[in-house]
């Protein structure tokens, strides 16, 4: 089956520049495809799953940016009494940028004890005791630490906010790894925020059997009589709504991913057609010595498959490496989407590259295998 493999590989090697450029094009396209895919996966992870469905966000009514939502901290006591609510964590949010940004830094101030209990953070460096005992300390998400090159003990300042890194954490929710956690009081008393007794939002954790939408409605009705009206939604819905502009953009970007696949298809098909046209006589010679038309077909398809797969694997691996080590995230209004590599994304990239390679080779391979041998042999 692979007896002609040296012929295929040497053929590609002979046209090294053409092979390299085509594989390079495939690599770039698959890089973009994987990047777009990572953003989509990040959004999907952010807006679905247990945390997104089983946690409610109580926000000030008709407010979207965390700097404009100001709820009384003692709402937590009221919310806690609503049937179906297991626990409530008041959260003060501070961000360096309310608009869409690729380098957004979001601080969440919350009770260290509640953070430890509710968020499932796993420290990879530092310790909880420093975080709990030191007023100006912060736990930094692994993604943020990578992006800003932060380590335990570093001082981290943005604007008037200055903290010392007490720990670096990983989280089951990838987007969390873009956050920095401080104590609630530290953030409330940050200069310029003036939020003593106020928080940006309350996170309500539900009992196992509670219906999120029913509880959300009950919370808003209960707080309607308070000084500030609220809007309560599932965390996933809240985040999707907050990122609505980005969601539209990301929705559009998936077409960019498809366009990249189309680009690879065209590029590899063009290269394969050129290779076949260059070797019309060679394929006729092969058939004259007894190579079946079907094998000629497979030889040509193998070439396009190899080029596409080589480029696709490189592009996918580079994309995964950049996603893994770049710590990239996009966010708006204090909510971030993590660009994280995943096995499924890598496999998708490689499978797409393989399928594109196969598809790109079909028409040239068909022509090569159906060549009139005598006419082809008579070519100069």
């Amino acid at each position, binding site marked *: 089956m692979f*007896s*002609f493999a*040296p*012929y295929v590989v*040497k*053929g590609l*090697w*002979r046209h090294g520049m053409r092979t390299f450029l085509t594989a390079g094009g495939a690599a770039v396209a698959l890089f973009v495809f994987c990047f777009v895919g990572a953003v989509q996966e990040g959004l999907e992870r952010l807006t679905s799953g247990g945390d997104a469905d089983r946690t409610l966000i109580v926000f000030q009514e008709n407010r979207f940016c965390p700097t404009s939502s100001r709820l009384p901290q003692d709402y937590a006591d009221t919310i806690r009494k609503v049937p179906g609510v297991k626990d409530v964590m008041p959260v003060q949010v501070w961000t360096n940028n309310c608009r869409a940004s690729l380098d957004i830094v979001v601080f969440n101030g919350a009770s260290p004890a509640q953070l430890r209990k509710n968020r499932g953070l796993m420290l990879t460096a530092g310790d909880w005791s420093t975080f709990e005992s030191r007023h100006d300390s912060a736990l930094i998400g692994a993604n943020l630490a990578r992006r800003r090159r932060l380590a335990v003990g570093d001082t981290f300042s943005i604007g008037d906010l200055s903290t010392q890194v007490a720990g670096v954490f990983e989280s089951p929710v990838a987007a969390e790894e873009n956050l920095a956690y401080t104590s609630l009081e530290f953030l409330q008393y940050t200069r310029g925020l003036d939020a003593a007794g106020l928080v940006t939002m309350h996170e309500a954790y539900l009992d196992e059997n509670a219906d999120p939408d029913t509880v959300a409605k009950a919370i808003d009705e209960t707080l309607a009589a308070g000084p500030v009206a609220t809007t309560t939604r599932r965390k996933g819905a809240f985040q999707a709504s907050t990122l609505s502009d980005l969601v539209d953009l990301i929705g559009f970007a998936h077409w960019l991913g498809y366009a990249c696949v189309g680009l690879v298809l065209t590029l590899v098909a063009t290269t394969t057609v050129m290779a076949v046209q260059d070797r019309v*006589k*060679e394929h006729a*010679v*092969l*058939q*004259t*010595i*007894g*190579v*079946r*038309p*079907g094998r000629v077909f497979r030889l040509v398809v193998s070439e396009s498959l190899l080029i596409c797969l080589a480029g696709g694997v490189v592009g996918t691996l580079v994309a995964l490496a950049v996603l893994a080590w770049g710590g990239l995230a996009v966010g708006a209004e204090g909510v971030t989407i993590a660009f994280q590599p995943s096995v499924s994304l890598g496999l998708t990239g490689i499978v797409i590259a393989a399928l594109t390679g196969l598809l790109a080779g079909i028409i040239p391979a068909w022509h090569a295998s159906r060549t009139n*041998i*005598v006419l082809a*042999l008579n070519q100069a």
Partner: protein
Amino acid sequence: MALAEIRALTKSFKKGGETVVPLDGVDLDIEKGDFISMMGPSGTGKSTLLNAVAGIDRPDSGTITVGGTEVTKLSRSKLADWRAEHLGYIFQTHNLVPVLTAYENIELPTLLVSMSKAERRERVELALEAVSLTDRADHYPRQLSGGQEQRVGIARAIVMNPTLVVGDEPTGSLDAATSVQIQELLVRLNEELGMTILMVTHDAEVANLATRRLRLEGGKLIELNGRAANTGNGRKAITAG
């Protein structure tokens, strides 16, 4: 029964609005061990007949049977299989695969049939030895002279020890000295290895090497005296028509 039997072979095609009939009911028997040369003016259909015998061109009508197999009835794929096992084709221009070494070029036909690696190596080495190119096995075509390239082409044609070797002007693109080497090689293949050869040539000197000389004219084959019966004046029409 002859090794190859060609019966009532006809082939025509349109050229400039006119119908040309290069093969008009050609009959020919090729016996095992024959070395046949075929001459004739350009465009008379020598290569057409050769290609039909090689199974790379389809006649309009008639039959070609080689070694008991009626090749004119075979499908494209079956024809390819048949060529792989039973036919050796020597091109005018060697037509070697440029990215493969001499050894790998000669090995190509052996990859098409089931055999052990050891047998494959032995066959290729024997073929290289037959064309005296053992020391050039690892050379690429660009590193070989024209004559050496043609010898590699011949080795590739004989590596499967085919039932029939066909050559389309095998010395046509070579200089005089190299042509002589190839002529000697063809005679040796026929005399020493007993290979059956059908060859098209424009060169009377090359044609005279054959044991049977044919001339194609007006769609008919005429047999002339060959090397083994070199009486010089015999002309025998063997076409039916």
